[in-house]
């Protein structure tokens, strides 16, 4: 009876960092409400001073869905992803936190499977993986797949992280776990995502994975150049030595 009562009181704070996502933020919000009908959740938009009017769209969305469901917690300018999560968490009233990208590469339809997995296993962290059956990517060239696979094998061999997708940023965290881990992380960019999951693994947090599909950004393309590769290698060595 107590456990059921506890489960019914789970609330999910979904933190969405945005920068110039005027169209995507509306789409994401619509899809979240569509796929999470029976879930108690709130969306926290951390916008870093977008010049394209993203915040105006968020205010319009608040009129449609309610200011208690969509929180706009903006910042004056681009201040980085890690601090965006911390900023979002300060205003989160849920006991679970979801982090996801605003560009529709992370589809809200997978959130019920994250939640289900967490309830089934009691995990502290549920992370989405693109690299297992049931998951996948779309819009990646052969070169990108090769780099991704090579990077993954390297990181697996050196770090033994216990998850198949290290750089993914579609995750569900128990709020207390996220607060604990994020305070120890110092890197930036996607190495930050790696650092979070590796530190969580080292600390003994219970981590589960669910397959997700990742459709690359509809407009424009991600660039993966030499400097990203160097940054990645530095990140792996840093994690090897400090975790």
């Amino acid at each position, binding site marked *: 009876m107590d456990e059921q009562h506890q489960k019914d009181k789970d609330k999910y704070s979904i933190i969405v960092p945005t920068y110039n996502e005027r*169209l995507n933020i*509306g*789409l994401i919000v619509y899809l979240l409400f569509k796929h999470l009908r029976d879930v108690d959740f709130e969306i926290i938009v951390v916008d870093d001073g977008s010049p394209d009017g993203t915040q105006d769209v968020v205010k319009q969305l608040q009129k449609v869905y309610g200011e208690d469901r969509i929180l706009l917690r903006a910042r004056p300018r681009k201040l980085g992803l890690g601090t965006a999560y911390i900023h979002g968490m300060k205003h989160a009233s849920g006991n679970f936190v979801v982090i996801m990208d605003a560009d529709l590469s992370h589809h809200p339809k997978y959130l019920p499977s994250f939640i289900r997995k967490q309830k089934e296993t009691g995990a502290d962290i549920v992370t989405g993986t693109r690299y297992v059956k049931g998951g996948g990517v779309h819009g990646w060239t052969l070169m990108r797949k090769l780099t991704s696979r090579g990077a993954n*094998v390297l990181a697996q061999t050196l770090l033994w992280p216990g998850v198949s997708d290290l750089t993914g940023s579609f995750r569900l965290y128990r709020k207390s776990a996220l607060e604990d881990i994020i305070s120890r992380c110092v890197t930036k960019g996607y190495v930050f995502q790696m650092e979070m999951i590796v530190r969580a693994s080292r600390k003994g947090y219970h981590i589960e994975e669910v397959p997700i599909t990742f459709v690359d950004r*509809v407009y424009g393309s991600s660039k993966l150049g030499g400097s990203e590769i160097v940054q990645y290698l530095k990140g792996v060595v840093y994690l090897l030595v400090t975790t």
Partner: protein
Amino acid sequence: MKHIVKILTMIMAITALWAGLLQVSMIPRSHTWLLPIYFVVSLGCYGLLMVGVGLMNFPTCPQEALLLQKDIVEAKEYLMQRGVNVSTI
């Protein structure tokens, strides 16, 4: 224990094993000296194999792109009716 300590301990254990094999000389000396090289090369080959296998089996989801486009259309319709700006300009 830090991860790097685990790895160094493993390397030390393997090195000790190798030194032991050198002492015992059950295997001809020339082979034993080359064991570390064999080890590193096989590790490299295993890595390349894993990359190749992973690349061949890389899961893709072209149908998801289509579903996403449908979702976008549906969302735009709904939001436009309720006064949310869904233009891209």
